[in-house]
């Protein structure tokens, strides 16, 4: 899955060269261009929490959202979503450590192209991914929703927080409720300088980049 894209940039000249990384999840805009463009209302904005989500059973795969999104967060399933749709897990890393591909290390575990939270490798119907539809980052809606059901608070409790936030080893990502003035993210935004990407489009993205 490439739902979160990471820009890589080299900055400076020799000898002061550094590499900068910039993650780009879906922006979950307040006024999403993709929702306006989608002809079937498959792409919709969830009223309760403001997440911009896709109904895979309505999507026709016209890729208008891919074209309309200024941030290019949409990914189309060009083939049956399996390991090598965008990235060849079999070949990648082969002979890197004198061994086979990634699968040799991963073994029978859930492969990286499937969501470990909703997919079971042995039950194909539980692999919620389809050919010919558009997917994108959901802010791990399934984790947030199941966490809230258990009474957990997104952004505070691990089980109600997007996977990228809890796995980031340097804690570069923070998640929380922007409407709540006492949430961790609201406090961070009050304290730190921030900017949002491509603000002049007026989409009001929900992803803030702290500087």
């Amino acid at each position, binding site marked *: 899955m*490439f739902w979160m894209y990471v820009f890589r940039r080299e900055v400076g000249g020799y000898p002061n060269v550094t590499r900068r990384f910039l993650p780009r999840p879906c922006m979950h805009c307040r006024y999403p261009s993709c929702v306006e463009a989608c*002809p079937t209302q498959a792409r919709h904005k969830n009223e309760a929490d403001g997440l911009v989500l896709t109904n895979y059973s309505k999507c*026709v*795969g016209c890729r208008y959202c891919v074209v309309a999104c200024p941030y290019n967060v949409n990914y*189309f*399933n*060009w083939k049956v979503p399996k390991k090598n749709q965008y990235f060849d897990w079999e070949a990648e890393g082969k002979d890197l450590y004198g061994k086979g591909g990634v699968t040799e290390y991963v073994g029978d575990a859930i492969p990286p192209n499937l969501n470990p939270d909703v997919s079971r490798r042995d039950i194909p119907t539980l692999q919620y991914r389809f050919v010919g539809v558009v997917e994108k980052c959901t802010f791990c809606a399934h984790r947030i929703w199941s966490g809230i059901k258990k009474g957990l608070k997104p952004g505070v409790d691990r089980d109600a927080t997007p996977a990228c936030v809890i796995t980031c080893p340097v804690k570069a990502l923070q998640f929380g409720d922007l409407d709540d003035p006492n949430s961790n993210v609201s406090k961070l935004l009050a304290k730190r300088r921030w900017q949002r990407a491509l603000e002049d489009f007026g989409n009001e993205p929900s992803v803030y980049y702290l500087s």
Partner: protein
Amino acid sequence: MSFEIWGVKITRRFVAWISFLIILILIGAYAYIQQLLEGLSRTGMQVPALGGAPWALYIVNDIYLVGVSAGGFLIAASAHLFNVERFKPISTLATFVAFVTILIGPPLFVAADLGRPDRMLHLAYPTPNPRSPLFYVLVTLSLYIILLVLEAWFSMRRRLVTKRRWLTAGFDDLSEASLHHDERILKMLSFVGLPIAVSVHSVTGWIFGLIKSRPFWLSPLMAPIFLSSALVSGVALLIFVCIVVKRFAGFRIEQDTLADLARLLSMMIPIDIFFLMIEVLTVGYAHEIVDMKPLLFLLVGANAPLFWFEVIGGALVPLVILAFPRFRRSDRVLTLTSLLILVGIWLKRWNIIMCGTLFSHDWFGWAEYPPGSYTPTWVEWSVMTCIYAVAALLLTLIIKFLPVEEERRVIPTPAVAEVE
């Protein structure tokens, strides 16, 4: 080898042509089945974040075929609405050219382009999105197709009575009053149809012109450009079809009619060039950062040969050729010219799509997506050929088996002729 079907003589040439089209259709069907089985990965498309074009050859042909149907309708409508006698003999043919291109082109190319063609009806039911430009494409296209069917039927009814009586559905009154009634209905249909036709092409332009995320597309000129180049390519196609049916189906089409069509063409090409010039000048003079990449790609970059062929070969050279009355009356020159124009407008569609889909906004110095590139695969080319073959097949069968040709009218010979 010649036999008759439904009272129409089938020649060897006709059988050869039909078989040729069917072979093309079969090849395309094979390619399309591969694409269905494996997904759109058989095409050269890719998402823009990974440096590709999410909309490509299929959409180019889709909007191209929407465009070429404009000419046929324009000619038929002007014949009925403004009583242009010159165009009356070809009005049924023109309506059918418009009808076939719009009936075959957009639906089939969209079906080829969709990731889930089995859900194609979701565009209309159960949850269409009235905020999406695609919704209005659907609405206007459906109205347009219905209108063209009605127009074709009414303009042909008189001949259906004698030749294909079952198609008249009982309305086989050939009295003077009834024919006059037909004329009035045709006039009304053309009157209602002109705004619908204009909106079909405008809405097609707005699919792109309203999208703010692609720097080159966001332009109020998109609708007029689509309209003008639709008319140019449409009339060019009509000229081409007229010459072909004259040569191979024995239609009687007067040289004056073709010359008039050519004159019409030479009036519309400058408008088309004018709009293109405004677009390029505005973008180029303002030289905003986001616009410059697609513009340079178009003018001097990888797409430059196609762009300059579009401008010189597809517009300026035909314009010069059509300026000579001698050439306007030569079938050979007209065939060549209309083909040049058709290729030129096709390239124009290609350029518009490529300048949009391949270029996304970079994040103003923060970050940038990889540069885009796109090459169609053989699957795309075959499916495209297949759909054009289907359109050609349908048009051929219509021209062969329906009384499309206007019966010869008994025109009183003018006195001048007798003096000669």
